[in-house]
Structure formats: C-alpha cells, structure tokens
C-alpha cells in the first residue's frame, strides 16, 4: 500500500464522518470568537459572520458538497430548536420590566415588526429582487432559529432567511447607536427595546455589553417579536402572496 493511497484513504474516511463537519464548524467559530475579542468586540468582527465565511470558503476549496457538510453539521443545527425553547428564560426574566410600560412596548413592537417587513419587502421588490429573495425577507427581523422555522412554514428558503437574519443582526448592532443618537433617544429601556425589535440576537448581545437595562429590554423585545412573528408572519405572507 503506497503512502499516497493511505492519505487518500484517511481523507475519504474523515470527510465521510460527521466529525469533520463538526470540527471545521466549531473551529471556525472559535477563530471568530478570538478575532472578536482581539478587535475589542468591534461589531464588524462578528464571530458568526467570520465562522460562516470561513466554513463556506473551506468547503468550496476542498470541493465538499454542501449536503455532505450539512449531514455532519446537522447535529449543531438540531440544537437550534432547543436554543429557541431556552429563550423562555430571558423572556421570563424580562417580564417584570413590562409592568407600567406595557402600552409603549406593545405598540413599539407592533409598529417595528410591521415596518420591518414592509420596508424590507418593499425596498427589495422596488429594486427588482425575485420572489424567492423577497419571500425570505419576511421573517428576517426575527431571531434566526424562529425565522428559519417561519421560513419552512411559508415555503421560502430557510437558508436565505438565516443569511438575511444574521446580516440584519450585524447591521443593526453596527447602525443602532447612530440611529438612536440621531433621534435623541436617551432612555436605556427605549434604546434596548428598539435594538431588540430591529436586530434580534446579535443586537441584544451588543445591547447587554453597553448597558444591562438595555440588554434586558432588548432580549424581551427579541423574544416577544419571535413569538408574535411566528403567528403573524405566515398570515401576512399569505395575504400578499396569493
């Protein structure tokens, strides 16, 4: 048995087992985390974006079909459902902050949620995006695990939705301070809540790093937005796509 042969054999064995996909996914995320810390938590160095980029380049370079990669990485993907259920804890912790502020918060959430869908779908349609793209825009302001569940229900691509949701989170985390300062919004709970509605998970972790009150309201907004959108987005989608 030649040496060349055995390397090929090792490679075939490795790329066929879930181990390889799990390894590159976790190590890419670890690299992303390290860069994020090194850059002093610069929102541009988002660990998730870095991990996606690295894994995507990696499987392109070694010419591994996406389906093969996903077969291994599905074990990580499966945990999304459990992670969604565990969002109950931040929502529960934030519930007491609803007291006395429920009216502004409920209307803020409703207005923000509707504007998010209307503006994303509107702008994309206006600029001539095809229907698979505009369809995936509907759930994009919702935290990615719920957004993908909604995408499956309404029959648009969960992958495109996940990409748009992650991009929204990153953009929101970067742009939110400028928008809120320009409007002169000073109260932490208003700033946090708006970030949670617009930029879900990534925005929320950003809000927590700025101020704990902003973070609590951001995670409350993210959770409520997710639950309400899971009911409302399919209804709105079918209203405009029949």
């Amino acid at each position, binding site marked *: 048995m030649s040496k060349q042969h055995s390397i090929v054999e090792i490679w075939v064995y490795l790329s066929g087992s879930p181990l390889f996909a799990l390894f590159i996914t976790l190590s890419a995320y670890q690299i992303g985390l390290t860069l994020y810390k090194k850059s002093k938590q610069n929102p541009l160095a988002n660990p998730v974006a870095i991990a996606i980029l690295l894994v995507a380049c990696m499987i392109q370079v070694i010419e591994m079909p996406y389906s093969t990669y996903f077969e291994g990485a599905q074990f990580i993907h499966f945990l999304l459902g459990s992670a969604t259920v565990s969002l109950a804890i931040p929502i529960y912790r934030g519930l007491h902050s609803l007291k006395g502020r429920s009216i502004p918060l409920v209307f803020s959430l409703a207005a923000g949620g509707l504007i998010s869908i209307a503006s994303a779908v509107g702008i994309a349609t206006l600029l001539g995006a095809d229907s698979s793209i505009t369809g995936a825009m509907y759930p994009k302001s919702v935290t990615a695990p*719920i957004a993908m569940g909604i995408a499956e229900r309404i029959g648009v691509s969960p992958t495109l939705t996940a990409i748009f949701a992650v991009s929204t989170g990153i953009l929101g985390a970067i742009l939110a301070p400028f928008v809120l300062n320009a409007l002169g919004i000073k109260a932490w709970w208003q700033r946090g809540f708006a970030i949670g509605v617009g930029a879900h998970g990534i925005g929320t972790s950003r809000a927590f790093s700025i101020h704990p009150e902003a973070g609590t309201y951001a*995670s409350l907004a993210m959770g409520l937005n997710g639950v309400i959108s899971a009911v409302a987005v399919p209804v709105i989608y079918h209203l405009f796509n029949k």
Partner: protein
Amino acid sequence: MIFGLVQILLFQSLGELISQFLLPTLPGHVIGLVLLVLWLVIRKGVNAELAMVADGFSQHLGLLFVPAAVGVVLFLPQLKANALAIISALVGSVVLTIAVSAVVARFLSKKTVNE
C-alpha cells in the same frame, strides 16, 4: 446541567407534539418556548440548572446557525444578481425598524407620564 437539558428537551418535545397534532400553524419549538414561559410564571422562578443551560445557549446562539447559513454557497449566483436590492433592503429596513420602534416607545411613554 443534565437536569436543565432534560427540562428544555421535555418542553421542546411537548411543543413538537402539539405542533404535529393540534396546532400545525406554529413551529414546535416556538410552542415549547411559550409553554416554558408559562411554566416559569406558574413556578415563579428559574432553577439554577435550567438557567445554566439557557445562558449557555444564549451566549453561543450564533454558532447554532452556522450550518444553515453556510448554505449561502448554494445561493451565491442569486445573491450576486440581486446584491443591490438585498443590501438596500437590509440596511433600509434595519434603520427604519429601530427608528420607528424607538420613536413609538418614546412617544407613548411621554403620553402616559403626562396623564
């Protein structure tokens, strides 16, 4: 930690069952989330094991959507063809959403304070 996972998986399974047989319009994990919130409200507290698992998940939530988002490789031509529309929609929408939510919250809370 194990007890925390057991609780999460229990509520997730309940959610999936309800979604499958009673409420097919809602994804199972969202039903599980709502049931768990209700359970915590009834119990009036989060036990330490559950909090540990939940905090772990929320800290690294991002990792969990890497496998799905890597599917971007399948959509590269489509994304390139629609790049301008996608970027404008994402940027425009996120700015408008944050601005509108913040302004509505401020406007309504001023009103209630004045009353």
